[in-house]
């Protein structure tokens, strides 16, 4: 598939130039030309007033027998002996996709002594669980988890695989997709079924959240994607539900793993797991000095929230880098995001724009954060925060 400009029809109006998100159209000698930056997204096709831009269908190169592939899979990530929330969230979404496609929903569970977690998967709506349980798989490892998931795909041929866009999910998701030779859509925030074709439509932010792209994987199977944690709701767990447990033997040997986890340093348990947090309280330059950050932490404690920080606060050494929210830090999507003394540079907004509700406190009424905020208090954050914390304490104890 490629985009072509019919030069004879082009009237050099320039309408296509401004809609191209990739800057892939140039005007030369009064005609529009498509450059190699084109991704065939088609944004220009609908814009051209004289229909001079056409989408050319190329011969299908890959003749893959797609009919062999069926079922929707969710990879369940295990952390500290429990399922990470994102896996359960994806089972909720996976159920909708599977029902829409008239297929089954299956979970993939890899680890050691994790059989008990299959019950959670059934309770969250999984029809089947593929369990690969072995001592060699006790810790996540790129090589062993890639090989294990690849084997499952080769043997059972799923049509769709959803994974959490966690550090590990993004680490081996790409490797698995590459080994299979299929497409992987990263960091999705929306999932659906394309009405015309029945393919999964994956929607994701790009350009620092300035645009959204909907992506399909038409000719390759499985259709794979990683999905951002805490975008979707966890389904209600119903432990009366039962399913089919399929035990698959592990083929992994110790020498297959070329990297080795020597030690884990837990900097924090709950407070910096921002990706999965339901509430985040973040502090920025307006906190003025490191001691004042305790005001942010106090509010977070009362709300059971994680603590975030702007780049300015991290660069100043007030908080470790693991807490940084923004383009060069973490991308978060909590139910409620408190921005305390954060002006809201676009790099910060890119990291938190998918929050459901934003509450901002800043003394500058013109701070860009207020454009993003559902509720904003113009005032001194150092004065407002302690009062806010007290009020929430009262509400909680009431």
């Amino acid at each position, binding site marked *: 598939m490629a985009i072509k400009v019919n030069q004879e029809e082009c009237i050099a109006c320039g309408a296509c130039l*401004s809609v191209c998100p990739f800057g892939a159209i140039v005007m030369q000698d009064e005609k529009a030309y498509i450059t190699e930056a084109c991704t065939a997204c088609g944004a220009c096709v609908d814009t051209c007033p004289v229909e001079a831009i056409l989408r050319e269908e190329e011969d299908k190169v890959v003749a893959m027998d797609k009919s062999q592939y069926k079922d929707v899979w969710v990879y369940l990530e295990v952390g500290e002996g429990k399922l990470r929330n994102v896996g359960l969230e994806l089972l909720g979404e996976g159920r909708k996709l599977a029902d829409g496609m008239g297929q089954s929903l299956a979970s993939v569970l890899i680890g050691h002594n994790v059989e008990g977690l299959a019950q959670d998967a059934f309770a969250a709506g999984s029809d089947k669980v593929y369990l690969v349980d072995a001592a060699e798989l006790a810790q996540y490892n790129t090589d062993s988890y890639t090989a294990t998931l690849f084997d499952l795909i080769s043997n059972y041929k799923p049509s769709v695989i959803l994974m959490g866009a966690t550090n590990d999910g993004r*680490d081996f998701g790409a490797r698995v997709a590459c080994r299979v030779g299929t*497409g992987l859509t990263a960091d999705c925030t929306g999932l659906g079924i394309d009405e015309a074709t029945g393919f999964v439509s994956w929607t994701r932010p*790009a350009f620092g959240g300035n645009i959204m792209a909907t992506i399909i994987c038409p000719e390759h199977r499985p259709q794979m994607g990683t999905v951002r944690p805490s975008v979707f709701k966890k389904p209600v767990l119903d432990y009366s539900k039962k399913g089919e447990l399929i035990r698959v033997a592990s083929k992994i040997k110790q020498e297959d793993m070329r990297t080795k986890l*020597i030690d*884990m340093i*837990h900097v924090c348990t709950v407070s910096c797991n921002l990706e999965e947090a339901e509430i985040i309280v973040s502090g920025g330059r307006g906190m003025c000095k490191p001691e004042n950050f305790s005001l942010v932490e106090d509010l977070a404690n009362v709300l059971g929230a994680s603590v975030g920080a702007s780049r300015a606060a991290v660069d100043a050494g007030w908080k470790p880098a693991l807490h940084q929210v923004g383009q060069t830090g973490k991308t978060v999507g909590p139910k409620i995001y408190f921005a305390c003394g954060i002006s809201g540079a676009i790099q910060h907004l890119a990291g938190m724009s998918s929050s459901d509700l934003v509450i901002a406190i800043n003394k500058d009424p013109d701070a860009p954060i207020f454009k993003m905020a559902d509720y904003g208090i113009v005032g001194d954050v150092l004065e407002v925060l302690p009062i806010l914390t007290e009020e929430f304490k009262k509400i909680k104890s009431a």
Partner: protein
Amino acid sequence: MEILVCIKQVPDTAEVKIDPVTNTLIRQGVPSIVNPFDKNALEAALQLKDKHGGKVTVISMGPPQAKEALKECLAMGADKAILVSDRAFGGSDTLATSYTLAATIRKIGTYDLIFCGKQAIDGDTAQVGPEIAEHLGIAQITYVAKIEVNGDTVSVEREYEEGYGIIEGKLPLLISVVKSINEPRYPTIKGTMKANRAEIPVWTMADLDVDEQRLGLKGSPTQVRRIFTPPQRTEGVIIQKDTAWESVAVLIQKLSDAKII
């Protein structure tokens, strides 16, 4: 030590603005920069070279103007730069891009370490690094915040959601780095002058041992179906009372009215 660094020229997404009338991207005047994480990758490579000796080669796939980005890397201290550019590569998704870059690396031949930034700020996929490692059949460690090389053993701190993991591996290895690993150096005047004089070789499809069917749009399993600007947030409620007490009281009332608390 032979070190390769993969870099991408990206639009500075912080400068991208949305036209409020048409709700489309305004790309005019948006500068092209070296992807910030890739600068951290280059800095990590340069620091290892400073310590252990060797050579740092920077590679990039992109349009001819990506040479500018490579020149900046040379000015920072890279020894060599190669641009991989061909219309046949246009429209590549991550699979086709990593395939092309892996073929480039095979042509270069020898390497001990390959560095990448954790992701590019325009696409944010974090996929090309791991996919290059897969095409080459070498091991990878992603989200690296600290690296030490001792003989053929590499020891790193890898970022996890809740902390860091100490991971060890053997050369050759592909490493993707996070921003906190270092502060990229600025180009020196001498470096910039040298970079300006440097000839950057451009390799095309014909230079690489590749299957044409796996390049560009043809070799890309994913297709962009639709691009749209996210709906703008509706105007929020701004509270500005005489005292902090009053403002908080109003906020609590509004949150409670909206049944948020």
